[in-house]
């Protein structure tokens, strides 16, 4: 079992960082700060997985990231509810925060062709990267020019399209294993599914961002 020097060096640094973070966690008393420190621990976990540096390790980074984000989100939500309950018991009335519109000038004057280029380029790329590029194009358009209102049906419809595209991606992925002869079909199925899925998700995020930026709920 011969380990490379770089791996050993990286592990020593990561373990040192982990030790410092745990020490900080043990000393910190306030809940919010401990939550932030636990998020930093999740970051060091990613570093430890990434140090391995093989193709397989690269695949393992995404699940690790998703799991740590899910954990941090869950406990952040619990912290909010906990503090809210505490305040309610003390009789404090909690008001929802008001946002005033940002009114950024460049949003009205920017050229729309950029969005078009991004969407076309994303469609050519396909896959996760293509979805992200096309999604940025959609976000760009929705943030700057689109003035329509989203109804609940519209939102649900877009989410459904996203969900169905995601299952196409899964089916394509399964076909690789079950019938490898149809690899080209499977590739297009999964690539196309993923581009639609990521782009629609980005679009929904874009609408949310536009509304909160304009001070609408």
């Amino acid at each position, binding site marked *: 079992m011969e*380990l490379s020097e770089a791996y050993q060096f990286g592990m020593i640094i990561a373990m040192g960082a982990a030790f410092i973070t745990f020490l900080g966690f043990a000393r910190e008393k306030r809940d919010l700060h401990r939550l932030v420190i636990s998020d930093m621990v999740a970051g060091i*976990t990613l570093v430890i997985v990434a140090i391995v540096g093989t193709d397989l390790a690269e695949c*393992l980074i995404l699940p690790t990231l998703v*799991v740590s984000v899910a954990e941090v989100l*869950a*406990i952040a939500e619990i912290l909010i509810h*906990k503090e809210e*309950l505490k305040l309610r018991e003390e009789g404090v009335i909690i008001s929802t925060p008001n946002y005033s519109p940002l009114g950024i000038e460049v949003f009205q004057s920017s050229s729309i062709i950029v969005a078009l280029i991004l969407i076309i380029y994303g469609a050519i790329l396909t896959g996760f990267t293509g979805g992200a590029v096309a999604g940025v194009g959609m976000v760009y358009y929705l943030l700057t020019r689109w003035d329509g209102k989203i109804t609940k049906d519209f939102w649900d419809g877009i989410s459904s399209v996203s969900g169905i595209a995601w299952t196409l991606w899964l089916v394509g992925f399964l076909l690789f*294993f079950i019938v490898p002869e149809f690899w080209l079909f499977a590739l297009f199925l999964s690539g196309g599914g993923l581009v639609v899925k990521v782009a629609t998700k980005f679009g929904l995020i874009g609408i949310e961002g536009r509304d909160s930026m304009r001070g609408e709920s």
Partner: protein
Amino acid sequence: MLEGIGGEILGVIRFGDIVPYITPFTLSMFILALTLTVLLALAKPENQILMVFGKDKYSLIKPTIEEMKFRRFMVIVCGLALSGAMITGDLFNFTLFVTLVGITNIGIIAAVRRPYVLEAAFQYGLICTLASLPLFGAAAIVLGTAGTLSLHELETLSVLPMAKILLAFGVAGETGIAPFYAAKAEVFRAPGAPYILMVHLSAIMVVIRTAEILLLL
């Protein structure tokens, strides 16, 4: 001496790098986890009765329907993650399933809107997030030193003792057993008997599977 700790291998599914294998041990644990999930999903939730100290009185805590629905959903997800952890033949998948069990355990108790339960859930969640570092760290070290994550192949390879220690620590933190039990103890004051049982059961079963993996490594 410790060869074939789970019994004789009944079958191996060659599916790329991940090699799921079935032994009488994993199979019986898998069936047990699924059966318990079905039983708990069908069980009627209890109403908690608290005796008033020093008086001939009691108070009845009736959880709301929405709260119970959410908790039952979380129990089902937890049961599925648990059965996945029981049957998987990949060390990284095992750690992912254990983390998922941890998150769903927080979900089971977080629906209870009582300050002391939420406080305990928050502390348990922090420990869960911190424990993901040794847990994923162990899997990454095994991958970095042995070059594979398949438990079937790891049986014949040797791994660093540090990886085993980290894995044990990670599982202990994630399921909230002995050294970290203080974070979880308050949780069991939450009303809703059949769902709280899942928190116990998942911890016990994950620990048993971890013992098998630690002996096998």
